[in-house]
């Protein structure tokens, strides 16, 4: 009997008069893959926001394992192992690909960070980058500024940044959104590999 990784109970979200989510309850079991499918405006991103901690104003409860996390802010949920990628790419646009991934690596221990130049610390971080760089096909681009990458590669970086901290629960918000015709195969392959690898 698989354990419950994430659970929502009677979640309702109202935006003024609009009921974006109406009394949703679901159990998400460990080791399983779930797809949330619906037309535009169905409330998919809203539900993801409730689960990931971006939408705290809601009725009902959210659980991670046994722990109730309904009002836990997003950064605390990340520390519990919940990772989330965004529909509208949110990467660190003015920083290099490497720096983007270094931040993701640093987020594994998000508490006190060294405030001095620490080569040892950085070296250990960099070792974690290689596998993700390969997976996302960004190895040749690792010194480029993230904001200058073509959109498909930015989406790959988005996924890379989300994956690197090795979250227990992975929430992907429309991972293929906005990807052009010629990039769609690579993107789909990456998504499949990611999911299979877990």
């Amino acid at each position: 009997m698989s354990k419950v990784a994430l659970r929502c109970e009677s979640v309702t979200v109202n935006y003024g008069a609009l009921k974006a989510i109406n009394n949703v309850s679901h159990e998400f079991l460990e080791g399983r893959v779930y797809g949330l499918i619906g037309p535009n405006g169905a409330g998919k991103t809203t539900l993801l926001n409730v689960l990931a901690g971006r939408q705290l104003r809601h009725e009902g409860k959210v659980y991670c394992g046994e722990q109730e996390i309904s009002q836990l802010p997003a950064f605390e949920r990340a520390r519990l192992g919940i990772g989330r990628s965004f529909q509208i790419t949110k990467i660190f646009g003015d920083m290099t690909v490497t720096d983007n991934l270094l931040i993701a690596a640093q987020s594994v221990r998000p508490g006190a960070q060294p405030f001095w130049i620490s080569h040892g610390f950085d070296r250990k971080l960099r070792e974690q980058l290689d596998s993700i760089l390969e997976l996302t096909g960004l190895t040749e681009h690792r010194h480029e500024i993230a904001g200058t990458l073509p959109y498909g590669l930015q989406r790959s970086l988005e996924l890379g940044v989300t994956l690197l901290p090795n979250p227990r629960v992975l929430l992907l918000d429309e991972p293929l959104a906005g990807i052009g015709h010629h990039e769609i195969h690579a993107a789909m392959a990456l998504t499949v590999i990611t999911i299979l690898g877990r």
Partner: protein
Amino acid sequence: MKLSKFDILFGLCLAFIGLLLPFSNPRETLIQLITLAAIWSIFAIGFDFVFGSLGMISFGHATFLGVGGYALSLATQKYGLPFMAGVGLAIFLGAVFALLFSFFALRVSGIFFALVTLALSQLVFILADSKLRSFTGGSDGILGVERPSLLGIDFFDPINFYWFVLAIYTLVMLAVISLRSSPFGRVIAAIRNNEIRADQLGFNVNRYKQITFVISGALSGLAGALLASLLMYMNPQMLHWTTSGDVIIMTLLGGSGTLWGATVGVIAFEFLKEWLSSWTEYWYGVLGMIFILVTIFVPRGIVGELERMYSTRQKRLDLRQRRAK
């Protein structure tokens, strides 16, 4: 953010000038001016820590500067503490006030943040000017603030005091360079780039902003103490919100977010002020006009533009080299 070639080159130039200056037999007024510039640079660096790194405009920094100045003045004059203890107190109180301000100001963002810091700052000014007059000396101020007393050196000699201030400035710059290139600095840059992403990854963004603000306050407090010591006088004017306005002008002139922008901005401001006031008594207005023009046409500031020109030149050279192969 790693140290760039530009940063190192520029820093070496500044170091060269700074170290050679006392040996060129300068006028006392020039030494005083450069010392003043170094102190204001520490203040501007403190301010840009919040503005350049996180894009938050604070009008509250005059408070941290003034609190530092009063801390030193009162510690040495009223309570007879040694100079360095006064400086330590100034740094501590600058940090404490910054923490206090951040408690109110970080609840809101953008314009509101600026206005909250402005309101809090003005409140402190009014208190210092009126209610706490017995403590601060009101608008008459405190006369005869001390110079350091270390190793028997006479720091009333402007050149000796200059070395003292230069040493502190160097320490501050080293600390800033270290912070910028550190993992901590990287997180700050990430928060600036995309706060939501940093938050979703697990960083307590508010805590980081608070820490940055506190460091900024500590630096400003240090500057305030040094300023009071330089002028040998302390009064509430340092706390007025227009002082915060001045440091904003200096930072923007030099280029916010860059390593040397704060220092260059201060030097540019002070020299412009000296030059302009020699032929008009309305130099502040002319400076305001120059500032407006800089804001419109040179938004990156002096150092920002220099950096851009340098990196464009580098890219052109790289391209030529690659074509030659």
